[in-house]
């Protein structure tokens, strides 16, 4: 049986990285804003 996940061609690795950065950057921004707000619990 072919293993779709075990033998990723090198070209696809770039695509995987791009896809994760695409969703990771906005999520990181959201988390940063969340942490900034959450610290008010201890400082506010």
């Amino acid at each position, binding site marked *: *049986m*072919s*293993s*779709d*996940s*075990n*033998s*990723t*061609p090198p070209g*696809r690795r770039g*695509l*995987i990285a791009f*896809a*994760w950065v*695409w*969703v990771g950057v*906005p*999520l990181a*921004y*959201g*988390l940063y*804003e*969340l*942490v900034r*707000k*959450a*610290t*008010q*619990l*201890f*400082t*506010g």
Partner: protein
Amino acid sequence: MSPPVAPPGWSRWLVPPAALSVHLSIGQAYAWSVFKPPLESALGLSGTQSALPFQLGIVMLGLSAAFGGTLVERNGPRWAMTVALVCFSSGFLLSALGAATEQYWLIVLGCGFVGGIGLGIGYISPVSTLIKWFPDRPGMATGIAIMGFGGGALIASPWSAQMLESFGSDSSGIALAFLVHGLSYAVFMLLGVLLVRVPRTERPVGDGPSAVDGPQVSARNAVRTPQFWCLWIVLCMNVTAGIGILEKAAPMITDFFANTSTPVSVSAAAGFVALLSAANMAGRIGWSSTSDLIGRKNIYRVYLGVGALMYALIALAGDSSKPLFILCALVILSFYGGGFATIPAYLKDLFGTYQVGAIHGRLLTAWSTAGVLGPLIVNWIADRQEAAGKDGSSLYTMSLFIMIGLLAVGFVANELVRPVDPRHHIPAPAQKEKEAADVQRQQ
């Protein structure tokens, strides 16, 4: 439309970001409150009126997930993500037109009705595909996607607020913000449409488990089983208990410690709400992944049993310990998120992957019910207690004990879950037909 089959060498690690691009977008729905004050002042609306697009959107989410699930299974994830993209983005574009022409009904139609269909179809679009790609870790896979729904509001809330600050809070500023939202989300969700693929084989991880191991039950048969309704009660009770805290978090922590030497300020209460959102998100990925190791029934025992214990601690400790209150609330919210994220994998265990997306869609009616039930209980009781002259933590004591009761009902329902009777399984010829179709797809 036939589902897009992965070419040889396609990595399954491309599917979670495809799912996330959709869930991070539609999660924006929970940041609707950012638009409420500008809409109220620009169009002269009341608070109830300005909440209408969000409420209609959540109703449409439940309805489209319940009734569109079979279509999603039939046409595949790319079709579903395309429908979600078109509906969600065009909802914003219609709302932009509504704000520009000061026709509020267009905003209700856009973000509420049309956008709500995008929410429902988008929410269930990647579930079945993720489970098929990750038969070895279905909890983790669906946890990633459903975590994205929680993350969507974290992104949209500051982003939309900054946009309104730049464009202005009058009707033309709101219209421009809606327009930018519609176009941006269309581009962002396009990644999901382009990347999502169904696996070529039923065993996408080499020697790992097959996606069709175990019993396979159709959506039509699943709703006739007691297992479906037990899980419906489990989800409804778990979500009701979580929403009970989430919906009143800021006033609750303020009221709880109002009579102490260290009352909670408004900004600290806002920080508490943000921390709860973080716990909700972390629970989605963390607890759902843990369910792959300890089993679905056991993880729901934790959500419901330990959740009830946490509520009991809050009720018994009263205003004596702020750290204990915060810790218990965080654990409850992590279980709330975990409950959402683990349910697709639980459904897969009981009903197989055959129509798990459609079954999940039907089960989400429990969410809609809980969305009404949770806030209703907490608000109604708090109002009654206030009218009776109570204050501080005693305003919420009865609500907390009701939540414990609800979690106990959910715990019993989880204990009643047994493997599905074989008479509900799809007959062997249908299974063979499906396998033949899969082989044909691969050629």
